[in-house]
C-alpha cells in the first residue's frame, strides 16, 4: 500500500456573516495517496475552493485537522509553516487575477524561490526559472514579459511554473482550466498529467466539471453545501454513482452526441449554506427524499469497499 500524503479530519470552516454562520466547509474527511490525484467536484457555493484554501492555510480552519505525512499542519507556527509551503503549492483559477500585473514572468516564477530561500544565488535562481519555463512550455522570449501581454493559456502556464518552482510534493489545483478555451484546456490538462508523472506530484484537483475530473483523477469527492456527499475511486463513481446528487450532476452534463438524450433534470437551486438545519442538505431537491433524510445529520455509509456515500438510501449497506 502506498503512503498517504495528505489527510483531513473533521475539517470545518465557518464564516460569520450578518445573517448567521456560513458553513463553507462542514466536516470533510478524505485522504490522498502519494503520487495520486483527488478530484473535488461541486457546483458554485459548495465550498470546494474554501476547502483548498483551508488545507493550504490561506485561511484559518474553524475546526479539524489537516495532516501532511501524518502531522497536523494546522498547529504549525510561522516558521515551520513557511517550510511546509515548499511542499504544498497552489495553482489558481483565474489566470488573469492570480498574477501580479507589475511583475515580469521571471519575477513571478522566482518569487517563491526568493521567499522560501530554496536557492540563494541569483544565477541559480535564473537557471531554475529557465528550467521551469521550459518544463511548462513557455518560450524564452517571455522572460521579461508582463502577464497582461499574454493569453490565458500562457498565463496559466506561468501559474504552474510558479507552483513548481520550489519543487513541491503536493499541489492544490483550484479550477485551473475552467477559464480557458477547450483546446487550451486540453493542453494544460495534458501538461498537468505529464508533470505529475515526471515529478511524482500529488494533486488535489478542484473543479465544477465532472468530465475534466474524470480524466485527471484517481479518486473523486463530490461536494454539496460544504459536505462531501460521495467519495470513491474515479472508476467506481462513474460506473456506479450512488448519491442522488452525483447522479443528477452526471445527468445534467450535455453529451456531445445528438443521439444521447438528456437525463432527468434536477429541480430547484442550491440553498444557502448559512445556518443549515440538520439533515441531508440535498433533501429539498432530491426525488428520493423522505422523513429519514431530515432532522438529524446523515452519517457516512460504505455500501461497497472504498465507496463512501452520505445518504440514507444506503443504510442497509452499512449494517
Amino acid at each position, binding site marked *: 500500500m502506498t503512503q498517504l500524503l495528505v489527510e483531513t479530519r473533521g475539517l470545518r470552516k465557518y464564516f460569520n456573516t450578518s445573517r448567521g454562520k456560513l458553513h463553507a466547509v462542514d466536516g470533510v474527511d478524505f485522504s490522498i495517496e502519494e503520487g495520486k490525484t483527488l478530484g473535488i467536484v461541486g457546483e458554485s457555493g459548495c465550498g470546494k475552493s474554501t476547502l483548498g484554501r483551508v488545507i493550504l492555510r490561506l485561511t484559518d480552519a474553524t475546526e479539524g485537522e489537516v495532516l501532511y505525512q501524518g502531522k497536523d499542519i494546522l498547529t504549525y507556527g510561522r516558521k515551520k509553516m513557511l517550510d511546509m509551503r515548499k511542499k504544498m503549492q497552489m495553482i489558481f483559477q483565474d489566470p488573469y487575477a492570480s498574477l501580479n500585473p507589475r511583475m515580469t514572468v521571471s519575477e513571478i516564477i522566482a518569487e517563491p524561490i526568493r521567499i522560501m530561500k530554496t536557492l540563494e544565488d541569483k544565477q541559480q535562481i535564473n537557471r531554475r526559472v529557465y528550467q521551469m519555463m521550459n518544463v511548462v512550455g513557455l518560450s524564452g522570449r517571455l522572460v521579461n514579459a508582463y502577464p497582461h501581454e499574454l*493569453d490565458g493559456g500562457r498565463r496559466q502556464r506561468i501559474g504552474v511554473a510558479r507552483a513548481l518552482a520550489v519543487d513541491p510534493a503536493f499541489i492544490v489545483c483550484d479550477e485551473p482550466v475552467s477559464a480557458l478555451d477547450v483546446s487550451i484546456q*486540453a493542453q494544460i490538462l495534458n501538461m498537468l*498529467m505529464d508533470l505529475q508523472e515526471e515529478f511524482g506530484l500529488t494533486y488535489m484537483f478542484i473543479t465544477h466539471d*465532472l468530465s475534466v475530473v474524470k480524466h485527471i483523477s484517481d479518486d473523486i469527492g463530490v461536494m454539496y453545501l460544504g459536505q462531501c456527499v460521495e467519495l470513491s475511486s474515479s472508476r467506481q463513481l462513474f460506473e456506479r454513482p450512488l448519491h442522488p446528487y452525483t447522479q443528477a450532476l452526471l445527468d445534467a452534463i*450535455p453529451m456531445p452526441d*445528438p443521439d444521447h438524450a*438528456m437525463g432527468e433534470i434536477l429541480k430547484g437551486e442550491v440553498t444557502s449554506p448559512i445556518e443549515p438545519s440538520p439533515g441531508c442538505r440535498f433533501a429539498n431537491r432530491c426525488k428520493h427524499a423522505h422523513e429519514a433524510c431530515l432532522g438529524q445529520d446523515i452519517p457516512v455509509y460504505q455500501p461497497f469497499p472504498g465507496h463512501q456515500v452520505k445518504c440514507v438510501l444506503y443504510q442497509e449497506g452499512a449494517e
Partner: protein
Amino acid sequence: MSEAFFTIQDLWVRYVTDHETVYAVNGLSLSLKRGQTLGLVGETGAGKTTTALSIMRLLPPRVSRVDQGNILFNGVSLMDLSEEEMRRVRGEKIAMIYQDPMTSLNPVMTVGDQVQEVLELHKKQSRRALYKRVDELFAMVGIPPDRKKEYPHQFSGGMKQRIVIAMALACEPELLIADEPTTALDVTIQAQVLQMIAKLKDELDTSMLLITHDLGVVAQTCDMVAIMYAGKIIESGTVHDIFHNKDHHPYTEGLFGSIPKLTVESRRLSPIEGLMPDPTNLPDGCAFAGRCPACMPICMAQEPDYCQRASHAIKCHLFTGENRGEAV
C-alpha cells in the same frame, strides 16, 4: 416553411483603434430556416459575439466597421434599415439572451419593470393587460410573479437568466439570439435553463441562433451547426453531419479531441497544439494552417473554398480540388 428566413451573406467586421485593427469577422455566411436552431460554435476570439452584435446592429460605435456583407431577415436587409426602424426590430422581431446574467440586468430597476419595459416599447396595450402579461411571462419562466417587485441582486444567477429569457421572449420574437446563455451557470442550472429555452422556443415557434463553445450543448439543442474559426465558418451542416459524419475540418477534429469525454476511457486528450492566430495579423491562406496536423503547402498560400456535400460544407483543401480523392 423550409425557405431560409434569415441569412447572413459574406459579412466582414473589423475593429479599428489608434493602435491596431482587429479582424473579427472575415466573410461569414450562414442561413437559418424558420423554427430551426443553429448552433454557432467557436472559441474565444472566433468572432461569435461580433456576429451576434452585427445582427442586432449593436456593435460598439466608432471602433467597429462593417466593411461588407448583408443580413437579410424576412427578405429585408437589416443593414438598410434606419436606426429608428432597427429599434423596432430589436426586442420585438429579434431578441437576444446574453452570456452573463449577473451584469445584463440593470441593478437599480425592479425585474418586473425591466420585463415590462420591452412590452411598453413594442406593444400598445392597457395597463391592466400589461401587468397581466408580465405576470404570465414570469410564470412562464418559472418565477413566482409576486417577485417582480424585487431587484436583480435578490435573485440567483439561474433565476436572473430566466428573467433575461422572459424579457427576450416577451414579444414572441421570430429570431432569438442566445449568446452563451448558460456559460456562467452551474451545470444543473444549465440543464434547467436549456430545457426551458428549448420548450419555449417550440411553443412560440421561434428560430434560434445559439452561440456556444460547448459541443455538448450543441448536440443536445441544435438542428444545424456552424463551426467558426478566426471569423469564418470552417464547417457547417446538420447535427448529424457534424457529430456522425466521418470527414471533418481538422479544427473540428481538434475540438472533439480536446473535450474530456465521460464515455471514453482514455487518460490523455488530443488537443490542438498552438494558439489561435493573432486577429490583428491574420495569415494568408487557411487561418488554421499554422496549427493543422495535415497542413499542406497550398494551405499557406491559398484560402480553401467550401466543399459542399448535401447539407455538409467543409472549408479545407483536404476536401477540395485535386486533394479530394486522397483525403476521403
